[in-house]
């Protein structure tokens, strides 16, 4: 199963500008599988992205937006992206600020399919 995750994550990280991709437990923000460039702090990315996703999901549910599927945080020097692959896991990517987000999102969706 983990190797299936790994293959899906490899496809995400092949997109130019992607620094790392991982499968993350939604409840506790722990890394299930990852593919990271050197220097990327996978545990921190996983924990912080899962926490952010939870908060955004709660906001969306309160606002009547329904169940959160995808969250993107744009920052000066990078982007965090998280896709809800199932009730248990997120597929997460950290990228450069000028990445082709549409392409990364597409690969995250594919990875999400593989993870389900």
């Amino acid at each position, binding site marked *: 199963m983990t190797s299936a995750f790994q293959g899906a994550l490899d496809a995400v990280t092949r997109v130019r500008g992607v620094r790392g991709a991982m499968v993350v437990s939604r409840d506790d923000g722990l890394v299930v599988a990852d593919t990271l460039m050197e220097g990327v*702090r996978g545990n*921190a*990315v996983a924990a*912080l*992205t899962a*926490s*952010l996703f939870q*908060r*955004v*999901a*709660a*906001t*969306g*549910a*309160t*606002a*009547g*937006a*329904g*169940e*959160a*599927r*995808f*969250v*993107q*945080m*744009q*920052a*000066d*020097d*990078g*982007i*965090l992206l998280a896709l809800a692959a199932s009730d248990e896991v997120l597929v997460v990517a*950290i990228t450069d600020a000028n990445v082709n987000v549409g392409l990364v999102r597409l690969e995250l969706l594919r990875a999400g399919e593989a993870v389900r």
Partner: protein
Amino acid sequence: MTDSIRAMSQEFARDPDSLVFLRLGEALRVKGELEAASSVALAGLERYPDLPEGRDLYARVLVDMGHLTEARQVWEGVVEMEPRHVGAHKGLGFLFYSEGNIDAALDHLEIAISADPTDESAIQALRLVRAAAADAEDDASEVADEPAGVFAGFEGTESMLLVDGQGRPLGGGIRIGSEDRSEHVAAYLTGVAQEAERAARILELGHWQWIMAEGGDANLHLTQPTPGTRLLVMRDRSIPTGRLAFQAARANAAAREWLDGQPQA
């Protein structure tokens, strides 16, 4: 004595170091056995004098006993130890509201909600205090009317919400049918912004600029028109996210202009 209180009493007697005194004291307080609740709280605090939850329990017991001044001192001590302690801020909010000090009550309840946006009792209390504040001031309508102008000329203003740094709505609103969800959403937005700031700082991503989320029924876009304020724009899923970002940018500019024109507090 209920079975659960008896069981907790036995556990506390068997192990005086147990934190079960927190649940036991609260159960006794709720049951109205205030002397017993006070004894349990003080016994626990002998073991754990700096435990904020223990002091919070004792303060609640003191309130029920009518010792409001002492309760306030205890809660103020909790806030000194833990500045965002939800229970202490809720308690202080209640005490100030009881004294008629609406502004101070609002301050404490807003801190409580920003620390835990899911605390329903704090949300209800804040709603009550805000209603009281509106009733008390004939000119409160000025506060309600002014924000309506923030998004003048925009479509879908019932799905656009501008909030300040403490989670208070400034303009627009979020409604589900006839239900106004603005205060709930405003409180949650504060938590989202804090989490985004934390993530950006720890991961060395610079400042966060915006957050976009796709939901099952609608998409969200969150920006910061000025430092400390947040703007949420929500649109049906039929609106592409790129167009949502464009609309959010326009709303952001309008909000910034409106905020710039407001007198400083």
